[in-house]
């Protein structure tokens, strides 16, 4: 600005430039202040936002069992793996699986003993059995579909058809060792 002010024939021109800039900046701030509430109003309200980000307590899940919660209209199944489950599934040759996926693809690296999946059979859409240790769990100690007989392992990987896809993993992250935030 210094050279341009010096190069102007009069001081009036630079003063006008400055005033124009000031007026435009003030107008932009005013318009932004008026418009921001209008834009923000289209963000979800606190209640919808909370419902869209369900927080689940996982501290009460015993090893080798799962609990199912409803979120976004879907049954979300959270299973706490036992040491035996991890040992049986950690080093499976993934190429031999119907839908190859490694152990680390299925669990959160910080909390490898929790599996969070959408508890819907990927073949014939159907709720799965196998949350409690006493339920039918198939040959892989995971879940079975009562509708088409598909079998899943504790990581939610499909092991026996007709289903061809692993159980879907919802958006989630661990807030701490006891809480999962979905969405």
């Amino acid at each position, binding site marked *: 600005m210094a050279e341009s002010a010096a190069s102007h024939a009069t001081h009036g021109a630079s003063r006008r430039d400055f005033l124009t800039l000031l007026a435009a900046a003030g107008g932009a701030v*005013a318009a932004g202040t008026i*418009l921001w509430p*209008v834009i923000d*109003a289209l*963000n979800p309200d606190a*209640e919808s936002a909370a419902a869209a980000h369900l927080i689940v307590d996982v501290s009460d899940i015993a090893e080798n069992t799962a609990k199912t919660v409803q979120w976004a209209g879907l049954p979300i199944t959270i299973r706490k793996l036992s040491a035996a489950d991890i040992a049986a599934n950690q080093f499976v040759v993934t190429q031999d699986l119907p839908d190859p996926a490694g152990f680390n693809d299925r669990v959160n690296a910080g909390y490898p003993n929790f599996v969070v999946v959408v508890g819907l059979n990927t073949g014939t859409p159907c709720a799965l059995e196998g949350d409690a240790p006493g339920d039918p769990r198939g040959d892989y100690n995971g879940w079975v579909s009562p509708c088409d007989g598909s079998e899943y392992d504790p990581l939610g990987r499909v092991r026996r058809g007709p289903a061809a896809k692993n159980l879907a993993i919802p958006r989630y992250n661990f807030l701490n060792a006891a809480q999962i935030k979905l969405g």
Partner: protein
Amino acid sequence: MTTHVKDSWMSTRLPCLGGICATYFQKNRAANAPYFAALPFLIAMAAAFLTLSGAVLAVYYNPWHAFDSVQFIDRNVNNGWLIRTYHATGTTMIFGVTYLYLFRSLLRRAYRAPGEFVWMLSVKLLAVLMLTGWLGYVLTGGAAGYWSLFNAANAALSMGGLPGAVGLWFFGGPAGGDTLARLEVFHALLAVALLLVVWLLHASRRAIAAPVASGKGVAFYPYYLAQYFAALAVFALVFVVLAFYAPHLGTSHMNQLPAESLAVPLGGGVPWYLAPAAGMLGVFPGSGLSIVAAIAAIVVLYALPWLDRSGRAGRCGKLYGFFTWVLALDVIGLGYAANSSSGAAPTLAGVFTAWYFFHFLVLTPVVTAMEAE
């Protein structure tokens, strides 16, 4: 900071836009327009602002649970209370500037040739604005709005022939969620119509602007742009003061209660901007006469260019100016009478209504003819 339209980046790629912009750089406007000439611009700004805030309200509004959805907007939606205040105070502002604009047109006798068409568009603007405003008042689902809709819908549906058919088409039945659902759409469509009328008003005002001697004119940019922005700043200041210190100015307490189909609210509940019209309609017994009165009140406004007998060159007399001020007080009095619960209110409304028609049908021709000599 200079702008050369002819070789700007945009005008070489979209010449049409450049052509529109070019008119704002031509030095063809008189240099001494008063600030009040910016009123149509303020009406346009208010209409755009109402469209914007109304669009947000429409996202959350539910005609089948009208009152509850308004409460939801006020309490749960982010800044929802502010958006509602924007819309309510914006309505007050657009009616304020429109009434002021019409009053100024009357006072200056701007309706005379060649301004008849501009004047007719101004009256049309008022009519569209009032219908839109009434629909918005009804959409809130408050007790007063519900009964206003109930009476209007029953009046329309009880008429025979074409008016009844139009009423049935418009309301789709008596008051209820299904009615509000369609009125919400009409409210939005009328808002678009309002923007169109404002634009036509602007265009026709430009068309009849007196030609300026070569070399004497100024361009819209920056002279009138600066003036319009100054007017807009005052407008915005008034808006902010009203929005934050008097958000419920001139609105009905009754409309703060949910609609109740078995309880008729006591007393008037009409917002200030509809009150003069409501006062006039209340004078006439029966729905048929009320509708005739509403049409007549608009028709005398339309006919004003021909009721004024002073001719194109006639000067503006003091007596006519005086009676125009009296008319303004008369309309304000009608509004007070509409929402007053005093025993004298019906009589006063009758007198004020009679004066309104007397002003246009008798005083205007006589006084203007007298003063033109």
